């Protein structure tokens, strides 16, 4: 039986014409972007903190922005909650004669540091916004003392901690980040930092995610 014709055109001819039309359409570059896909994104499993042993002679503790404007009950209570872990790191560092470096941003000074983890007066202090190497002599301070590993504690996890830890790894340092001593005003900020530090391209092999009680000196 001959195919049914409409105005002399068969269904097969129509299909062939449609196929050739579709063939010349540009392939859709990217149907969606991350904003369109936002709700469908699944978080991967949590990274696993690992036990770490550091050499006190070549390791420094970086205490990032434990200053009152960044670390207070109103704006960032999760930072206040990290102070016992940060104090534990600080006590261990001082007991092992390790280099301790403090930071702040803006016009804040060492005197603005939370009293629970206050500097002792002889410990270096640098001022910069997020990446504490930008516009400071932090790298020189560390390298002049033969530092090869930095333990990083502080706030915000998705700001100063993430940027300084990443840049430390890029500058050749081994990096240790205890998750119980970093904080952001929201837990999502901490989640961002933890995952990126444990999985970020290039940097991850030089970063150890741990907790303050999993570090041995």
């Amino acid at each position, binding site marked *: 039986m001959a195919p049914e014709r409409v105005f002399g055109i068969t269904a097969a001819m129509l299909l062939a014409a449609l196929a050739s039309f579709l063939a010349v359409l540009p392939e859709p570059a990217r149907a969606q972007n991350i904003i369109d896909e936002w709700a469908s994104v699944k978080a991967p499993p949590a990274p696993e903190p690992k036990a770490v042993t550091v050499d006190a002679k070549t390791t420094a503790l970086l205490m990032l922005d434990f200053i009152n404007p960044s670390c207070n009950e109103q704006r960032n209570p999760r930072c206040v909650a990290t102070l016992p872990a940060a104090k534990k790191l600080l006590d261990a560092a001082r007991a092992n004669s390790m280099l301790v470096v403090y930071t702040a941003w803006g016009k804040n000074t060492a005197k603005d540091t939370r009293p629970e983890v206050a500097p002792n007066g002889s410990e270096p202090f640098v001022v910069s916004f997020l990446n504490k190497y930008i516009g400071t002599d932090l790298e020189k301070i560390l390298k002049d003392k033969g530092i090869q590993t930095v333990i990083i504690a502080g706030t915000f996890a*998705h700001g100063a901690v993430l940027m300084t830890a990443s840049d430390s790894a*890029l500058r050749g340092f081994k990096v240790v980040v205890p998750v119980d001593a970093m904080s952001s005003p929201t837990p999502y900020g901490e989640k961002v930092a933890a995952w990126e530090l444990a999985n970020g391209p*290039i940097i991850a092999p030089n970063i150890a995610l741990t907790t303050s009680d999993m570090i041995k000196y």
Partner: protein
Amino acid sequence: MKLDLSPLIAAIGMIAAAIVIAAPARAADIVDEWASVKAPPAPELKAVTVDPKTTALLMLDFVPKACNAEHNPRCIASLTPVKKLLDEARGHAMLVVYSGYGKFTKNDVLSPVAANESEPFVLGILNKYLHSDLEKILKDKGIQNVITVGTAANGAVLGTASTAAELGFNVIVPVDGISAPDLYAEQYTVWDLTHAPVIASRVTLTKIDMMKF
């Protein structure tokens, strides 16, 4: 009459014990809390008008090892919109700067978005300002704004865009011009760029067809 205070004493003891138990500084860290922490709402994309005279386009790591169908197909998918952006930039005589890492050279840039001979190429890992003259290249040309596209979103884009913001540049990030091997990395990258202190105030998240020149 003698009062039996033992129930009261027991109750006070229980309350005291509860207070002590409630006191630990932080019951959990982010790893413990992981499963309960959900992504916040998506940031809003904004229309952007670009001043071609003071704006540069940074084309980050469109090189084979970083941008290929096997390990990073989202990067391959970004090439078409990025090419459109590149054509606009060149059409408006904007500065275009390419980057690579390791031993990659300008000639390794993928052909759909290949570099012109006159366009600068810098080498760097993640933060393209570190150990390169990128900042000088930009400032010598009077650049105040950088459009940052490339891969990986959570590597070169995050490191370079955040540093640009800290160095004082205004940063434009079109979400359809950045990519990572997995969606999660793209998601937290755009969140961090729009929420991290200091950086967020200098970063505008957009998409390529929301940009006017």
